[in-house]
C-alpha cells in the first residue's frame, strides 16, 4: 500500500474535474485521480452545445435563461443556484474561448449560437439562439481544451486509478445535527498493478459523472456506473432527487447512441408512421423543441398508440431530409455519421429511426452553490465537494435543459475548485486512520477469491437483468405496480450478486474485477432511484407516474433526500429554494 498527501484531491477528470483542477492547482497542491485517461471521459461525447446568454446573434439575457432553466426543471430547481449558473454562464463560455476552444463563428467572427430545446426569448415567446457550439462536437472540444490547459499548468494526474472508498473522520450515520464531520481522503485501486493507495487530503472533490448504465438503452459510456454517488451513499451521505433521470428523445433506435437535440435545433422534425409532425399536438408553440421529458413521452405515446414505425412499430423518425446536405455537413457531421455507420442510413435522403435513451442523472450528491457536500438538509461535510453530473446543486430540477450540463460542469466545477483550495488553505487534514484501506483491501480480496470458487453467477448476466428491469419498469412511464416489481427484482439480483464468480485472479489490469465492483454501484443506485420514484406520487419533469399523472406542488414540490440504512433506503425531503419564480403550469 502506498500513502499520498495533497491539499486537494479531485476524483474524476471529465469536464467538471478538470475545470476544478485548473482552479485548485493554481492555489494548492492538487492530484486528479481518474479511472479513465482524462480525454476518454464522457464529457467528450457531448454534442450539441453549451448555453450562455451572450446575445451574439439574438437579443437574450441571463434572466430569461434562468426562467427557462427553472420552468424546464418543472419548478424543482433551486432558484438561487440557477441564477448563479445563468449569470456565470457568459464568463464560463468566454473563459473556454480564451483557453482556445474552437467555437463555430458568426460571419463577423463572434461565437455562433443556435437553438436548443426549452430555451426561449422573453419567458417562452419563441425559441432563442443561446447554445454556443463547435459543430456537434462541443463536449469533445471542451474536454480537449481543458486537458490542454491541464498539460500547460502541469496538473498532476493519476490515470487509471479507481477510487473505491471515501474516508471521513466520523460515522455520518451517527453524527448529530450541527456536529463536525470532515473528509480525510480517499482509497484508490491502481488498475495497472492492482496496488491500493490512500490519498489523504484537506479537500476532496467528487466529479465522477453520471450513472446511465443502470439502464440498458443509454447514451452513456460503459464506464458511467455512478461510482462517486454510490461511494457517498455507502458512507452514509444522502443522494438527492435520484428518481429524476432524463430520457433523451433521439437515441438511435435499438442502440441508444445519441443524436443531439441540435438536429432539431437546426430544423429536423420528428414524424410518426403517418408522416405526421406529431409534436404540433403536444407542444403547439415550440413543437419539436419542447423540453426532453415532454418529447420523450410524446414519442413513447405515439408508439403505444400504434403510430410507431418499422416492422415492430417501435420507433419514430427524425427527418432531416429537407435540410441542405452542406448545412448538415457543417453543423451535424458526427451524428449523421453515426446513423451511417451504425444503422446504414443516409440522413440526407432517409429519415433516421429514433427512440428515447437514458441520458442524464438530474439527481446526485447534494451540494451548496459552492460545491460543498451536504450530509443532511443543512450541514456540510467539511472539505468534501462535488461537481458535475454526480452532484445535485440543484440547477436541473426534475428535467435538465439541453446545453445546461456542459454549463453546469464549467460553472460549478470552477466553483468547487476554488472553494476546495480555499478551504485547504485554512484547514488541517485529520490523520488517515491506520485501517483506512481495509475495506477496499477486503473487498478486492473477496472478489478475487471468487475465481474458481463456489459462485455460479456471472456479473454480465446480473447486470443485463438489472438494466432490462430498469428499462421495462422505471423508464419514461412508471406506475406503482412497475416500480414495486422493479424493487423486488433488484432485491433478488442483489442476492444473486452475493454468489458471483469472476474469472481473472490477476493483479495487473484486472478489468474483470472492476466490472464486478461497478455492478455493485449500479445495484445500490437502482435501489435509490426506485425508492424515490415509488414515494413520489406525482408526475414532474422526467418522473412520470401514470397513476398520478399531474404535478402536485402541495405535497411534492420538495427534493428527495435518500439515505442508505441497514434496513433499506430511508427517504427524507428538503425544501426547494424559491427566489422569484412561482410555479405555474408548464406549457410550450
Amino acid at each position: 500500500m502506498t500513502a499520498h498527501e495533497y491539499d486537494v484531491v479531485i476524483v474524476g477528470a471529465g469536464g467538471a474535474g478538470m475545470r476544478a483542477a485548473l482552479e485548485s492547482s493554481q492555489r494548492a497542491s492538487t492530484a486528479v485521480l481518474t479511472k479513465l485517461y482524462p480525454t476518454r471521459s464522457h464529457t467528450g461525447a457531448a454534442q450539441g452545445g453549451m448555453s450562455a446568454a451572450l446575445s451574439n446573434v439574438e437579443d437574450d439575457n441571463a434572466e430569461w435563461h434562468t426562467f427557462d432553466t427553472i420552468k424546464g426543471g418543472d419548478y424543482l430547481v433551486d432558484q438561487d443556484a440557477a441564477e448563479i449558473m445563468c449569470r456565470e454562464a457568459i464568463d464560463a463560455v468566454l473563459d473556454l474561448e480564451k483557453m482556445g476552444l474552437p467555437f463555430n463563428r458568426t460571419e463577423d467572427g463572434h461565437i455562433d449560437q443556435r437553438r436548443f430545446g426549452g430555451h426561449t426569448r422573453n419567458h417562452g415567446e419563441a425559441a432563442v439562439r443561446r447554445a454556443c457550439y463547435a459543430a456537434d462536437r462541443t463536449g469533445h472540444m471542451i474536454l480537449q481544451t481543458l486537458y490542454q490547459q491541464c498539460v500547460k499548468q502541469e496538473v498532476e494526474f493519476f490515470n487509471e486509478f479507481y477510487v473505491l472508498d471515501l474516508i471521513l473522520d466520523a460515522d455520518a450515520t451517527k453524527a448529530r445535527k450541527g456536529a463536525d464531520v470532515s473528509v480525510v481522503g480517499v482509497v484508490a485501486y491502481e488498475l495497472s498493478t492492482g496496488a491500493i493507495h490512500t490519498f489523504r487530503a484537506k479537500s476532496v472533490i467528487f466529479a465522477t459523472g453520471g450513472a446511465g448504465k443502470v439502464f440498458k438503452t443509454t447514451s452513456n459510456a460503459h464506464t458511467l456506473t455512478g461510482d462517486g454517488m454510490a461511494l457517498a451513499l455507502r458512507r452514509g451521505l444522502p443522494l438527492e432527487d435520484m428518481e429524476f433521470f432524463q430520457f433523451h428523445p433521439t437515441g438511435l433506435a435499438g442502440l441508444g447512441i445519441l443524436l443531439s437535440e441540435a438536429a432539431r435545433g437546426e430544423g429536423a422534425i420528428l414524424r410518426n408512421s403517418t408522416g405526421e409532425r406529431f409534436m404540433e399536438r403536444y407542444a403547439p408553440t415550440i413543437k419539436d423543441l419542447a423540453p426532453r421529458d415532454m418529447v420523450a413521452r410524446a414519442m413513447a405515446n405515439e408508439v403505444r398508440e400504434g403510430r410507431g414505425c418499422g416492422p415492430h412499430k417501435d420507433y419514430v423518425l427524425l427527418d432531416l431530409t429537407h435540410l441542405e446536405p452542406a448545412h448538415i455537413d457543417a453543423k451535424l457531421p458526427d451524428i449523421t455519421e453515426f446513423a451511417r455507420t451504425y444503422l446504414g442510413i443516409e440522413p440526407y435522403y432517409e429519415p433516421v429511426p429514433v427512440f428515447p435513451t437514458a441520458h442524464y442523472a438530474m439527481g446526485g450528491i447534494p451540494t451548496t452553490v459552492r460545491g460543498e457536500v451536504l450530509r443532511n438538509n443543512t450541514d456540510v461535510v467539511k472539505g468534501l465537494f462535488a461537481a458535475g453530473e454526480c452532484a445535485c446543486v440543484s440547477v436541473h430540477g426534475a428535467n435538465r435543459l439541453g446545453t445546461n450540463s456542459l454549463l453546469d460542469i464549467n460553472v460549478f466545477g470552477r466553483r468547487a475548485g476554488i472553494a476546495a483550495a480555499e478551504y485547504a488553505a485554512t484547514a488541517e487534514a485529520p490523520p488517515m486512520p491506520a485501517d483506512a484501506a481495509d475495506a477496499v483491501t477486503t473487498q478486492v480480496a473477496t472478489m478475487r477469491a471468487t475465481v474458481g470458487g463456489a459462485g455460479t453467477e456471472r456479473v454480465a448476466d446480473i447486470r443485463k437483468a438489472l438494466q432490462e428491469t430498469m428499462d421495462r419498469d422505471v423508464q419514461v412511464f412508471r406506475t406503482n405496480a412497475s416500480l414495486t416489481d422493479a424493487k423486488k427484482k433488484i432485491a433478488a439480483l442483489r442476492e444473486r450478486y452475493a454468489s458471483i464468480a469472476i474469472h481473472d485472479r490477476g493483479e495487473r489490469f484486472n478489468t474483470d474485477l472492476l466490472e464486478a465492483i461497478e455492478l455493485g454501484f449500479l445495484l445500490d443506485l437502482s435501489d435509490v432511484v426506485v425508492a424515490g420514484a415509488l414515494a413520489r406520487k406525482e408526475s414532474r419533469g422526467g418522473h412520470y407516474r401514470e397513476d398520478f399523472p399531474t404535478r402536485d406542488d402541495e405535497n411534492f414540490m420538495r427534493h428527495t433526500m435518500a439515505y442508505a440504512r441497514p434496513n433499506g433506503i430511508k427517504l427524507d425531503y428538503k425544501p426547494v429554494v424559491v427566489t422569484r419564480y412561482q410555479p405555474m403550469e408548464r406549457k410550450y
Partner: protein
Amino acid sequence: MTVTEDAPVGEIATLNVTIRIKRMNPEGTPARAPGESYWEEFHVEAHATDRVLDALHTIKWQEDGSLTFRRSCAHGVCGSDAMRINAKNRLACKALLKDLNPSRPITVEPIAGLPVVKDLVVDMEPFFASYREIMPFLVTTGHAPTRERLQSPEDRAKFDDTTKCILCAACTTACPVFWTDGQYFGPQAIVGAHRFIFDSRDEGQWDRLEILNDKAGVWKCRTAFNCTEACPRGIEVTKAISEVKRALTTGEF
C-alpha cells in the same frame, strides 16, 4: 452509448464469426508463461449490426473474463479502443463485423509500436508524452480581451480537421517510421501541433515549429499514408503533415 444485445432495427440476421485474438498475460496463466504472447480463437454468435467491440464483450462476459481491453464510449468518440483488426488499425467500436469479411477468422491484435501491457492493452504513456511535448495548448501574449477573441469562419476552417483528433493513437501506431525509429514523435503529435499552428489566435507557432523541425520531428515522415488510412475520425493526417512541412519551408500559415 451502450450495447443492446437484442436486434436493433427490424429483423437482423445473426452471424457466426471466429475471432482470433493475440493475447498476453503479464502474470502468466496455467498454460502460459508470464509475458508469453499467443493466439487464441473464439467462436461468437453475433448480430449483423454488431461491432468488434460487441464480439469482444461477448467473449469477456460469457467465456473468458480475463480477456482485457480498454473501452468506454462505444461509439467512436473517446479513443479508448484502437486495435489492429485484420491487420489495420481501427476502433473496435466502429468496426462492424459484417464489413470485415466475417466468413474468415477476424484477427485482433494490440496496436503496434507501444509496449503491450496485457492482451489488447498497451502502455499509452510514450504516446501521450509526445503529445505533451508539442505544446498542445493555445499560446497568447498580452492582455486577454474582455470578450471573445474574434476569428472569421474562414480562419476557423483552416484547422477544423485537426481539432477532431481523439488521441486514440491509431495513426501513430500505423506509422512504419514510428515502429522503427524510437525518436520520432509520430503523426498524432504533428496533428496536435497543426491544430494550434493554423489557429489564427495562437502566437506559439514558432516555438512549436522549432520543436517539429527537430530531429524527432516532421522531416522523419516519409509520406507512407498509413496514418490517413488509419484515422477513425477521417482526419487527413498526411495533408496536415505536409501543411506543417510547407509552413516550415515558406514561413507561411
